[in-house]
Every structure is written in structure tokens, then in C-alpha cells.
């Protein structure tokens, strides 16, 4: 049993009172047949096992009052030697003599271990010492030898066994007559035969062999752990004649020692584990602290009664506190310290206090600070595994960015919706300015750069409508100085944003340009922080947006500026789109105009008049068209068509249709064939649901008039106004074009006499509504009848005027008219 000093310290950690009456592993020690005594470095016993109690005759309590000198007999020198050995070497082995309580002594084989400050002595009663035999009578000796529990035998220096006591018989299993005269090596297991010759050599040299641990084999082949002590025997002349061996079967002892060793190792392992667990705990604690510190969240822990227990630096940072302010502060005081930096102090403090009143409550809210930062608070009761409430933890997270992004996103989404929902960009920009208030500004204004270079205030938004009016008047009275070094004019001129996080009184003065009246107004407005961002789209600066924090006391930073620039960018795009829209509008109309014949051709014997009027607003140009062209052989073609749909696409299709008709007319004579070609061409190019109706007329002068061949592809039938005023619809309905691959188209022939007119029109004429009632064919025919005998231009005028006059509403459809009158 060897316990190192290091292990002893481990011992102490596990057993905080090592000097207590009970030894570690007392129970195990109590099972040992050996005496175990533990003394401190003053020689006082601090522990003993039951073998010690039994052998020494003291009670355990009595032993604990004893000193080593009371028990270990012998001279002080012996004791001193023992102590010295103990200091010099951790393990001491030797023979000692112990004194019982009754004063009797006995020899013992002892080992002492140095264990930290303690000396552990393990003592085994060895019976009479060999040395003690000298001087005893042979009879005494024989009696002692025979009665001994140990094996005692003698041998020659050659190893021949001479005597064999009962103890030897018992331990080795051989009777005396079986072994005497045989060589002692019979007792050694094969691998230890060498050992025997070695021992004999040493004996011959006169050496004494003490406390020799080895293994021996018994008669029945069992291997036993043996303790041997071998001394030379001298004859009367002092010559070594042989040797006497005392052998003790220590197998059991070895087993116990092994067990002890095992127990020690286990203990050591346990201690190591305990230590590592503790180390781990400590490590975890450190880790937790590190995490807490490294955490992006501020953490504040309070005890159930509201005492501030712990917090991390992030908490201080978020709240704007220095570590010093936390010294001995109560939570109520903490709240009051927070007050000046809060945007809505009463509301926030109230919410926090309400949570304190309910220890079980969880709470999540947002705390807005004057500096614009927003911190989300999550407060939750803390419980241990048993559910016992041991405080409250609050976690604080800076959500300024998140909220800003959220707000920005919402603002941008709403602004974008506004921007696409209306083409009235002025109204839209006003809406956008008002969307910015109050989340992003107390004031928001939009200025646009007019073509003449002047800056016009287009939109003002403020929570107070009174101030909106005021701002307008202010601008009127004090127009923006376009040469100013800073401010609106500068931003528009340079296209670069300005951020005035905090507007100083000096800046306010310089912005007022020395005008005391303006300065007074500025002061009254309580302008605190200003952003001016340009409205830039497609590389052009169209104006600027101003965001102002005034009475709310907040201020802008770079992030706000980025958002404002984003918003302004979108607004600018909308503004520019509106401009482009207007332009596109004009382009579409121009396109349509350009697609119509510029001037009608002159045809011998025929007078022509055409009208075209686009209905609806701006970009919604229709797809109506008309065309007149020569087709060869003295013949001409008249066409009127309507591409269903509006806008540039319809106009483009109309252009394509007109072109196709012209091309087809070169190849095909028959109008129905021309329309068939058109139908095929349209099928290839038209998207779903787009279609086209066309009335196509081929006119050829004959001897006494003009012969018309008419084909209609889904188009209203042309009208013929006879010289006498009769009106008839000519031609037969045919399938509309651009939808079906197979179309039913026919050619109808009608002859016009001089004075007769062909009137081609689109449904914009007949479909004109008044109070839900259409102009209709009847009214159309009536207008025609009334125009009989008049030149085609007047007929066309009459029709257009009648239609426009009829309509109570703005025309929703285009109108195209072509009048061809046969003249003499």
C-alpha cells in the first residue's frame, strides 16, 4: 500500500477532515489482519484499524490519544531512525517491537508509508524474531519452531532440506519425510529455480536474506505468494553450516494488498474524475461568463426580491451606463437613470414595473431611445430544475437595425405601391412624403427641379396640418437660394446627399442667411436633425427630399441616410417614369399618327375624306386605322380596321396590319384573300385574345361609276350613301381576324354611281354611348341621309360631330372614318 503525497492531498479534498477518528476506507482497513496505525508528523496517532485495536489492547479512542513512543518499544534512536527513514524515503520496512496496553511487547514486521504529513504504519505480528532465537535452548527452540504457524525449515548450503516443521507441512502440503534429503528447489516454480541458486550463493557468503517476497509451489501445484526470511546457520566454530528459512504464505495478504491497490487506484481515478468534473464546472462557468460577455445580448439578472445580481458589459453598453453606476444601485434607481435617454420614459418605465410586480410573468417589448436606437427586451423568470424561482433574467437586444430595415421595408413597400398605383406623380410624391411621417421624420418635403431651373416645393408632410400650410408659405416667401453652399439647392445642384445629424444654432443661423425672421421660424420649428437626399433617376437629378427630425428630438445617422437615399431613388424613378409615361404617351400618338396615311392620294373620279380621333386619355391609344392605296390596274384599296386593345402594342399591331394589307394587296386581288393573308399573319404574331377587324374594299373605276368588291373580317359592314340619300349596309359579315386559323370571308360586289359615297368606319362611331344607349346604326344612317349630296369632307365632319355631340361621356373608343365619294 503506497499512497503518494499527491494522492493524500486528493484524499483531503474528498475527506476534508483527514485527522478525524475514522480513516478513509476504514471498513476495508478493518478487514485487514495487519495492524494499521496512522500517525501525524508529531507522532500522534490519528487513526487505527480494528486489528490494531485487538492486538494492542487499546480502544480506538485510546489509540487516538497515544503517541508513537507509547506503542513502539525500543530506544529513542530507533524511533529517530524510523522518523529519519520516513523522511528520507517514502517507504520504510523493518522489524519493530510494539508495546501492548498491558505493557507486554511483541515483535513485528512493519512497513511505514509516508502519506503527506501522515505516517501510515502497517504492522504484522511476526512472532519471535529470528534474532531472538539465539540463546534459546534447543528444546525451547524446537517447541517454538513446531508451534509456529510459519513454515520453518533448514537446509544445507547446497540446498538439501534437513528439517521441516508442521507449519511447513501445512503451507507447502509436503510431509517432512517427503522433503527431507531433497533439494529445496523443489519448492520453487520452474521460472524461479534460478532464484534458489542465487539465494544459496548469497547464504554461502554469509548474507542474511530478509523480507524476501517470492512465489513458491505447493505439493498440489498451487502457486503461493511467500514471504521468506533466510538466515545462515553457523556451527560452533562460526562456520556457515546451513540456513534456516522462515516462510509465510502471504497469498491472502497479497490479495488484500492488491485489492487495496485497486481501491487506491479507483479512488485516485474517482478523485481525478471529481477533479475533472470540478474543472469542467469551473471551465463551463468561465465559458458561460465568456459567452455572456461575448453575447450580443445585454443580460441582467435579478434576484426574486429585485436585487441586481449580475449583468454583462453589453447590457451597460445598450443602456448607456458605465460599470461604476451599477455599484450598489437598486433597480428602481437604475430605472430612473434610464429615464432621460428614453423616448417614452413613462410608458417604458411603467411596462417594466408592471413586469416586476408579476414574478411569474414573461415579457417582450421594445424600448425606444432618444438617440434613435431600439432595444428589444425579453424578460423571463429564472427557475432551477426543481422549478424553484430564483430570479429574473432580462435579455436586451439591439433591434435598431432590424426595426429600421423593417420600417424601411414597409415604407418602401408602401411607397412602391403608391408609385405604381398612380400616374399622377405629384399626388404620389405627396403620399410618399406623408408615409415618411412620423416613423422616419417629423417633417418630410419633396422638391422638384422645374424645367426652368427653379426649385418647386411639391409635397410637405407633417403630423400637424397647420405646419404643412406654414411650410408652403414659408417657401413662397423665402424661395430657395439656388447658389447656397449647403442645403436643398446644393443637393440638387451636386446630386449629393447632406446629413446634418445635429443642427447647431450656428448652422441654423447660417441657413437663415442672416434673415432674423427666417431664423425665428427655424427656431420655432425646433429643427434638430436634417437629411437632404437628391431625387436621381437615370443619371438626372430631378429634385430632392428632405427629412427633418424636430419636436421628437431624434437625430439621423448614416443608416437613416441610406434608407432616405433608397426611398428617394425610388421616388425619383417614379417621377422619371411619369415623365417617360408622358413622353411615351406622346410617342404612342405620334406613332399612331405616323402609321396613318399622311395625305390621302388623289384618285380620279373619287373624292376622299378621312377622320381619325383617338379616344381616352394619353397612352391608351387605340388600334384603329384606315388606309387608301393603289393596287395596280387603275384600282385602289380602301381599308378600315380596328385592332382590339389599347396602348402602344395595339398601335404597333395596327401598323403591322396595315403594312400586311398593303403587301398582300399586291399579290391578291380578291379582298377576301387579302384578309386571309392578314389573318394568317396576325395568327402568327398576335398574342392570345388580341384580334383585329378589317373592312377591305377594292375599288375600280368603270364606265359609269366605281365597282366595289367588299370583304369584312369581323368588321361593321360599310355603309353606302346613295346620291338620293338612301343608306345601305354593304358586304357580308366575316370572321374576325387573328383568332381562328379557318376564317369565313366573302367578297361582295357593289356598284357606286356618281354622287354615291362609300363610308367605312370603326365601331367607335356606332358604339358611342349616352346614358348607356349607343349611338347605333339608326342614328348613323340618319346623319348620313342628312349629309346626302354634300362633299365627303362635310359628310365626315357631320358624322364626327354627331358622334361627339351624342356622347355624354368621354369617348372610350377610337374612331376612324373614311368617306369615298364618286364624282363625275
Amino acid at each position, binding site marked *: 500500500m503506497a499512497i503518494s503525497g499527491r494522492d493524500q492531498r486528493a484524499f483531503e479534498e474528498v475527506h476534508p477532515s483527514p485527522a478525524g477518528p475514522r480513516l478513509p476506507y476504514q471498513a476495508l482497513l478493518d478487514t485487514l489482519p495487519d495492524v494499521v496505525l496512522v500517525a501525524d508528523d508529531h507522532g500522534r496517532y490519528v487513526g487505527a484499524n480494528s486489528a490494531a485495536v485487538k492486538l494492542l489492547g487499546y480502544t480506538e479512542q485510546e489509540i487516538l490519544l497515544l503517541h508513537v513512543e507509547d506503542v513502539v518499544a525500543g530506544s529513542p534512536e530507533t524511533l529517530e531512525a524510523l522518523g529519519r527513514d520516513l523522511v528520507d524515503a517514502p517507504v520504510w520496512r523493518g522489524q519493530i517491537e510494539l508495546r501492548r496496553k498491558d505493557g507486554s511487547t511483541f515483535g513485528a514486521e512493519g512497513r511505514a508509508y509516508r502519506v503527506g504529513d501522515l505516517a501510515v504504519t502497517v504492522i504484522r505480528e511476526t512472532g519471535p524474531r529470528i534474532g531472538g532465537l539465539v540463546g534459546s535452548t534447543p528444546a525451547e527452540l524446537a517447541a517454538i519452531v513446531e508451534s509456529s504457524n510459519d513454515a520453518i525449515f533448514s537446509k544445507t548450503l547446497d540446498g538439501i532440506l534437513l528439517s521441516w516443521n508442521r507449519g511447513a507441512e501445512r503451507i507447502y502440503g509436503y510431509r517432512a519425510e517427503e522433503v527431507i534429503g531433497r533439494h529445496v528447489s523443489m519448492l520453487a516454480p520452474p521460472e524461479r529455480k534460478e532464484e534458489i541458486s542465487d539465494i544459496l550463493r548469497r547464504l554461502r557468503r554469509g548474507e542474511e536474506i530478509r523480507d524476501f517476497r517470492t512465489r513458491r509451489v505447493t505439493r498440489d501445484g498451487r502457486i503461493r505468494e511467500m514471504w521468506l526470511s533466510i538466515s545462515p546457520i553457523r556451527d560452533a566454530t562460526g562456520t556457515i553450516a546451513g540456513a534456516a528459512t522462515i516462510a509465510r504464505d502471504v497469498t491472502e495478504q497479497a490479495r488484500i494488498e492488491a485489492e487495496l491497490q485497486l481501491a487506491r487506484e479507483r479512488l485516485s481515478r474517482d478523485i481525478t474524475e471529481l477533479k475533472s468534473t470540478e474543472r469542467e464546472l469551473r471551465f463551463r462557468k468561465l465559458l458561460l461568463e465568456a459567452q455572456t460577455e461575448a453575447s450580443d445580448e445585454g443580460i441582467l439578472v435579478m434576484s426574486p426580491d429585485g436585487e441586481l445580481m449580475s449583468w454583462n458589459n453589453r447590457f451597460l453598453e445598450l443602456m448607456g451606463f458605465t460599470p461604476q453606476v451599477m455599484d450598489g444601485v437598486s433597480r428602481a434607481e437604475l430605472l430612473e437613470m434610464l429615464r432621460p435617454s428614453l423616448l417614452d420614459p413613462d410608458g417604458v418605465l411603467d411596462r417594466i414595473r408592471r413586469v416586476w410586480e408579476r414574478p411569474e410573468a414573461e415579457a417582450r417589448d421594445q424600448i425606444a431611445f432618444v438617440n434613435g436606437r431600439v432595444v428589444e427586451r425579453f424578460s423571463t423568470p429564472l427557475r432551477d430544475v426543481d422549478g424553484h424561482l430564483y430570479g429574473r433574467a432580462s435579455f436586451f437586444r439591439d433591434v435598431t437595425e432590424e426595426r429600421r430595415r423593417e420600417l424601411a421595408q414597409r415604407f418602401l413597400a408602401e411607397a412602391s405601391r403608391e408609385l405604381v398605383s398612380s400616374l399622377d406623380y405629384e399626388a404620389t410624391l405627396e403620399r410618399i412624403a406623408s408615409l415618411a411621417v412620423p416613423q422616419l421624420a417629423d417633417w418630410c418635403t419633396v422638391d422638384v427641379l422645374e424645367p426652368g431651373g427653379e426649385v418647386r416645393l411639391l409635397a410637405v408632410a407633417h403630423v400637424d396640418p397647420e405646419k404643412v400650410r406654414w411650410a408652403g408659405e414659408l417657401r413662397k416667401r423665402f424661395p430657395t437660394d439656388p447658389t447656397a453652399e449647403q442645403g436643398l439647392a446644393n443637393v440638387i445642384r451636386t446630386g449629393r446627399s447632406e446629413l446634418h445629424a445635429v443642427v447647431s444654432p450656428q448652422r441654423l443661423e447660417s441657413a437663415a442667411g442672416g434673415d432674423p425672421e427666417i431664423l425665428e421660424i427655424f427656431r420655432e420649428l425646433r429643427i434638430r436633425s436634417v437629411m437632404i437626399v437628391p431625387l436621381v433617376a437615370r443619371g438626372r437629378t430631378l429634385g430632392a427630399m428632405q427629412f427633418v427630425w424636430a419636436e421628437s428630438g431624434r437625430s439621423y445617422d448614416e443608416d437613416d441616410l441610406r434608407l432616405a437615399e433608397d426611398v428617394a431613388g425610388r421616388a425619383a424613378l417614379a417621377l422619371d417614369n411619369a415623365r417617360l409615361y408622358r413622353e411615351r404617351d406622346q410617342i404612342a400618338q405620334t406613332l399612331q399618327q405616323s402609321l396613318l396615311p399622311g395625305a390621302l392620294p388623289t384618285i380620279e373620279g373619287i373624292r376622299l375624306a378621312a377622320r381619325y380621333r383617338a379616344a*381616352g386619355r394619353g397612352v391608351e391609344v387605340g388600334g384603329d386605322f384606315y388606309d387608301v392605296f393603289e393596287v395596280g390596274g387603275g384600282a385602289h384599296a380602301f381599308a378600315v380596321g*380596328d385592332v*382590339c*386593345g*389599347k396602348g402602344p402594342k395595339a398601335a404597333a399591331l395596327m401598323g403591322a396590319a396595315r403594312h400586311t394589307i398593303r403587301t398582300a394587296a399586291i399579290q391578291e386581288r380578291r379582298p377576301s384573300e387579302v384578309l386571309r393573308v392578314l389573318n394568317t399573319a396576325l395568327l402568327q404574331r398576335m398574342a*392570345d*385574345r*388580341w*384580334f383585329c*377587324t378589317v373592312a377591305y374594299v377594292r375599288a375600280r373605276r368603270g364606265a359609269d361609276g366605281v365597282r366595289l368588291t367588299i370583304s*369584312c373580317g*369581323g*368588321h*361593321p*359592314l360599310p355603309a353606302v350613301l346613295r346620291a338620293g340619300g338612301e343608306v345601305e349596309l354593304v358586304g357580308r*359579315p*366575316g*370572321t*374576325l381576324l387573328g*383568332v*381562328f386559323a379557318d376564317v*369565313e370571308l366573302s367578297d361582295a360586289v357593289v356598284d357606286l354611281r356618281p354622287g354615291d359615297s362609300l363610308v367605312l368606319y370603326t*365601331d367607335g362611331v356606332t*358604339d358611342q*354611348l349616352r346614358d*348607356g*344607349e*349607343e349611338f*347605333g346604326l339608326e342614328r348613323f344612317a340618319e346623319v348620313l341621309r342628312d349629309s346626302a349630296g354634300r362633299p365627303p369632307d362635310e359628310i365626315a365632319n357631320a358624322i364626327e360631330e354627331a358622334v361627339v355631340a351624342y356622347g355624354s361621356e368621354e369617348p*372610350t*373608343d377610337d374612331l376612324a372614318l373614311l368617306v369615298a365619294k364618286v364624282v363625275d
Partner: protein
Amino acid sequence: MPLAVRVSYGSSAAVVAVEGELDLATAPDLERSLGAVQRDGRPVVLDLRQVSFMDSSGLRAVLAADARARASSSRLALVAGPPSVHRVFELTLLDRRLEFVDDPAQVVP
């Protein structure tokens, strides 16, 4: 004048009854209604009897519905409107291409 579109579901078909003017402004409403009713592929009867006016925009809505019905192997039938309305179908010969019925109940799946 606004357009009123009423949808009723009979045992065999959905009847979409239209009342009012069918023009550029209102045709999208009809298109949406028809699109929604046709989504499950059921036969649809478009009742135009109460339509007071229809122009090519209305025609476009009808053609789109017809195309959807064909694409889903379903059916679109129409109940003709007043003569001024029906004239649009006649002029374009759609009266021959589309299925016209006298009574919505005539349509069986």
C-alpha cells in the same frame, strides 16, 4: 354604368349572368369572374340577356373564356343578348363559332 356579374351554380353548369355595359372599362371584371368560375373546369353559361352594350373588349373577354373552355375540354355556352349586342357576334361571325343556347338550363354536362 357599372357591370353586374352574378354567378349561380346549377347542377350541371355555372351560370354567369351579366348586366350592364360591357366595354373597355368593365370587360376586365367579366374576365376575372369567368376566369374564376372556369378554374375548376366546369361548363359555364354566359347569359348576356341583360347586357345593354358590348364592344370588342367584351368580345375579347368572351373569346378568352372560349379559349379556356376549349383548353380544359370544358364548355362555354352563351345566351344571346339583345340585338344590338348580338350584332357584334354576327358581324364577327362568332355567332357561328360559339355555342348559343336559348335557356341556361339547356346546358347539360
